């Protein structure tokens, strides 16, 4: 009996103790939240983005005379965790602004929470239009999918002379579904033939076997296959497509931009072509070149698109806080909305009325086992 009393008291004590611990007076810092997928299917993107944010913090760690404290919460590549992470950042940590997330679904989930709380969020790389549409507090420093889908459709038709295409999408990801939609729209428009998309198949995040879908798709002889999912599945899919005898080009979007694409895809990764946000070779602003040096000094390799975007998102948020002159959510929001020609490492960032950045896209391919820059496409 007494054991139970003790346990009961311990539990009550824990709960009581956690109250002051959580509500303790904070040292005088400005807290910035970061919610990214550090584990799970999208971990590569989250980790790469975090690299950029850490680098940026090293460069600029104070604003309005106070040190900046960055709080990272892992959203585990899950939509529900994204909402939880955001709630935690806002309620428990009391952040004034948030950066994140890689993965449009995750951004959208977290965005619901931040919108209600009136906390501004700067997205680094989510490209689905719905992330910012109709939202007062969500912004992004990257382009959106209507543009990205069109980029790849144009590349397919103009550069590859494709007359027919097949689309394989990840039906669990808003990003993938949206991007496929825009690709399809543009492809049909460019070829003038509504039947030019000969096959449309789908899978779920986490799937490993695509042989059934691929066998079906390949039998319809598309000139190109557009797979709008994330890098892990894309790598496996490419491998299996090659094994099934497909020799055409495989195209994708910025979710392919991760070293795992080549690691897991192996030989099959050769020739994979996709659109993304940034390439060190396509550096456009003075800050870009500086960024390349900084990144290489810290990490010992060439920077990737998501680190660059993470860097930009952080810098932009800090800049907005400075311009707002306060940590009030509405003031920061207004400052973000009026951003004009901010010098980012991924280009000159101007935020339009939909809270999106107007940016150019970079098309890359895998050549000789490494990413290789192909071309830049302007909006």
């Amino acid at each position: 009996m007494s054991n139970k009393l003790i346990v009961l008291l311990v539990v009550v004590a824990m709960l009581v103790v956690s109250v002051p611990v959580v509500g303790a007076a904070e040292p005088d810092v400005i807290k910035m939240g970061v919610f990214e997928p550090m584990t799970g299917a999208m971990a590569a993107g989250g980790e790469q983005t975090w690299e950029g944010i850490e680098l940026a913090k090293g460069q600029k760690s104070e604003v309005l005379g106070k040190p900046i404290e960055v709080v990272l919460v892992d959203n585990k590549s899950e939509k529900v965790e994204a909402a939880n992470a955001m709630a935690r950042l806002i309620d428990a940590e009391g952040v004034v602004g948030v950066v994140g997330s890689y993965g449009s679904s995750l951004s959208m989930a977290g965005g619901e929470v931040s919108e209600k709380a009136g906390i501004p969020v700067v997205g680094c790389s989510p490209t689905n239009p719905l992330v910012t549409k109709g939202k007062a507090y969500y912004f992004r420093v990257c382009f959106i999918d209507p543009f990205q889908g069109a980029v790849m459709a144009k590349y397919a038709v103009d550069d590859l002379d494709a007359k027919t295409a097949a689309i394989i999408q990840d039906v669990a990801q808003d990003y993938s579904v949206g991007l496929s939609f825009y690709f399809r729209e543009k492809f049909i428009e460019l070829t003038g033939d509504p039947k030019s998309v000969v096959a449309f198949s789908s899978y779920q995040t986490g799937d490993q076997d695509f042989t059934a879908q691929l066998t079906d798709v390949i039998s319809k002889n598309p000139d190109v296959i557009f797979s709008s999912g994330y890098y892990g599945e894309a790598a496996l899919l490419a491998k299996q497509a090659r094994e099934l005898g497909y020799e055409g080009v495989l195209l994708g979007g910025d979710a392919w931009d991760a070293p795992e694409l080549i690691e897991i895809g192996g030989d099959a990764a050769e020739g994979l072509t996709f659109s993304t946000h940034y390439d060190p070779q396509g550096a456009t602003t003075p800050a870009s070149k500086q960024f390349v040096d900084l990144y290489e000094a810290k990490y010992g390799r060439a920077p990737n698109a998501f680190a660059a975007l993470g860097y930009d998102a952080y810098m932009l948020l800090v800049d907005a806080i400075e311009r707002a002159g306060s940590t009030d959510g509405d003031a920061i929001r207004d400052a973000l909305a009026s951003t004009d020609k901010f010098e980012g490492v991924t280009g000159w960032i101007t935020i339009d009325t939909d809270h999106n950045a107007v940016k150019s896209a970079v098309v890359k391919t895998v050549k000789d086992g490494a990413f290789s820059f192909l071309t830049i496409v302007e909006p």
Partner: protein
Amino acid sequence: MDLTLFLQHLANGLSLGGLYALIAIGYTMVYGILRLINFAHGDIVMMAAYFAFYGIALFLLPWPVAFLLAIIGTVFLGMGIERVAYRPLRDAPRISVLISAIGVSLLLENVAIVAFGGRPKAFPRPSMFAEQWEVQGVRFNNLTLFIIATCLVLLVAMFILVYRTKTGRAMRAVSRDLEAARLMGINVNWVISLTFGLGSGLAAIGALMWAMKFPQILPLMGVFLGLKCFIAAVVGGIGSVPGAMLGGVILGVGEIMIVAFFPELASWKYLFAYSLLIVILFIRPTGIMGREIQEKA
């Protein structure tokens, strides 16, 4: 659908089914002896894959050595789990062991996330397994043949072990009646450890084949895989090794064929495994090749 296409799908199905079969064998052995659904089996598969991966990537061992060490390591892991998490509960109500298995499963998954990181790793495919063959327009990997061959070899090996050796007889005795076996002088603890070790070793072989075919390894890769392979074992007849193989093949071929014949139903293919389970449990609870298990009152 023309013949070539159908055969291609069939080949894909057999390839996948063979993998399910390999892993299901481990499940069925453990259940046959202990009546325990080892929920942690899928995660043991995952650990085996990571052991091999690190053997090659970190310790730079040649792949045959790394594979062998991974199998041995997994055997010890399985035996260790039995010793620590299942043996103390042998006299407890059956549900406790089940809950313990859940706990072990969760522990393995979370340790993997911390130790191996959340990003997928690329599992190497040695060139011996990477050849592409084409027969009459149907393409497949020679890995598929290795998988099927391994299944058959293991089938024969298990048969010999269980029906032709003294140890096998001990295993069958323990499976029939644990107390009686103990009274007859069989070292029950040792037999059970052996069974677990064997099951884990088989899981490891399955893991290596799986990882070679699907070279992306993740800490949570064993979660659904384990569940599906368990269903395969139940469908084929829990406790029966040929049953596990049959179940695996049915599951693999079924999953592929559903998508092949009804491409619009691609997202429904997951339903196949679970529905098959329910149907089999109603029509023939002991599975297709299972034996009658006396239900103790």
